[in-house]
């Protein structure tokens, strides 16, 4: 490694000051993307502001309507929380499918959605449940949050504090993982909440996106065969040596059907 200053603030205000006073400072939470990037010298921040010790960013709070997960909560905590399991089982299932045990014990919800990797799992749940992202300065609806590849509505220096997931009547996540990295080649989150039915896809495009045709079809009848004949356009989808855009388009249909079946449709 090369030299950088490491800060471990205990309050959000302190973290903001550190971030503002160093032009090349970077927030680090679990570091599951940032640290490998730094090791490759593809990023050389002068200062790392570790937000893992800030009390306001931790904790899982469940009430009658929502499950609120702090930004610094690790995937393993969400996966093993009895409260989350009871309120939104699909959310704990998804957290348990992220990466490998090492990643799940380091990586955090806030880090995942602030980075917005096109193949990350959490964005599917955030968008699929129609969650609300709470930051240090405002609340952002999931529909307005994911803008593109590694691109979110977050402003420079804005810090994710927590994500509020509405409880779902039924929901499930199905993913086709890359066999080595466990990244979602395609992952689909299907949910029925008080606000209606939502289908969110990750891994296939530049960022998580919804499929309105599927949502309408499931609104008529919540069953896997309602999705027959609905095709996703491959033109803007991702392609790599593991899966072509056309194959990913096909997988969106397959994963969506599996998710609907798993949700009891």
């Amino acid at each position: 490694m090369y030299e950088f200053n490491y800060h471990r603030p205990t309050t959000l205000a302190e973290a903001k000051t550190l971030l503002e006073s160093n032009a090349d400072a970077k927030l680090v939470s679990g570091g599951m993307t940032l640290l490998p990037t730094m090791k490759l010298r593809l990023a050389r921040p002068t200062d790392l502001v570790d937000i893992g010790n800030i009390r306001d960013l931790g904790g899982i709070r469940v009430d009658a309507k929502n499950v609120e997960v702090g930004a610094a909560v690790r995937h393993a905590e969400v996966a093993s929380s009895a409260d989350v399991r009871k309120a939104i089982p699909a959310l704990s299932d998804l957290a348990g499918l992220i990466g490998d045990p090492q990643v799940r014990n380091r990586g955090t919800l806030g880090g995942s959605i602030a980075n917005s990797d096109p193949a990350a799992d959490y964005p599917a749940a955030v968008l699929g449940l129609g969650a609300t992202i709470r930051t240090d300065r405002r609340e952002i609806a999931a529909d307005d949050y994911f803008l593109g590849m590694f691109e979110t509505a977050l402003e420079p220096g804005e810090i994710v504090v927590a994500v509020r997931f509405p409880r779902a009547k039924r929901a499930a996540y199905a993913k086709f993982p890359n066999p080595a990295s466990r990244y979602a080649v395609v992952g689909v989150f299907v949910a029925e909440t008080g606000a209606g039915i939502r289908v969110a896809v990750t891994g296939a495009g530049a960022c998580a996106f919804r499929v309105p045709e599927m949502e309408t079809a499931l609104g008529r009848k919540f069953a896997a065969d309602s999705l027959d004949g609905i095709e996703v356009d491959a033109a803007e989808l991702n392609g790599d040596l593991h899966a072509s855009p056309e194959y990913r388009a096909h997988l969106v249909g397959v994963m969506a059907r599996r998710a609907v079946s798993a949700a009891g449709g």
Partner: protein
Amino acid sequence: MEIQGEYLIAGPRERVWDALNDVDILRECIPGCESLERVSDSELQAVVMAAIGPVKARFNTKITLENLRPPESYTMVGESKGGAAGFGRGTATVTLTESVDSTELHYSADFRVGGKLAQVGSRLVLGATRKIADDFFGSFSRKLDAGAVRVEVHGGAGRQPAPASRTWLAIGAALLVLLIWWFLLR
């Protein structure tokens, strides 16, 4: 994998061609470009700050302009070495077609990475190429014509018939002329 795009820019083709060869305009349109200098007629040297997701690194990039066919087309070849991380090589073939009072800019771009960069980033290459190419050609087009629009392209196939049918038309016309001559001279 190739990425394609098309923009409709108001104004004559020569103007767009000149801009494609204008170092100052290119510098302003290449995302993250910190400096761009002409080394020779067909070679440029750039320093580009790539900031995409977790990556924020400075790359020295050599840009070569190949297959120069003024004012119609050229191929821009960019090569970057990222030290221990590996290397990247991108090409973009730009074709300009004249229409009534505007110019159609068509590009087809490809990008490859090697070394460790490929190990961690190959799944992101297509998306990143799409984004960078669109950022570049989008701001380039809007610089020349604030109202420039991106035209939908449906693969490369859609563009082929036009020149092909024109060729057949030319052959047909030539045959017709030959036939008439043959009848007249008989």
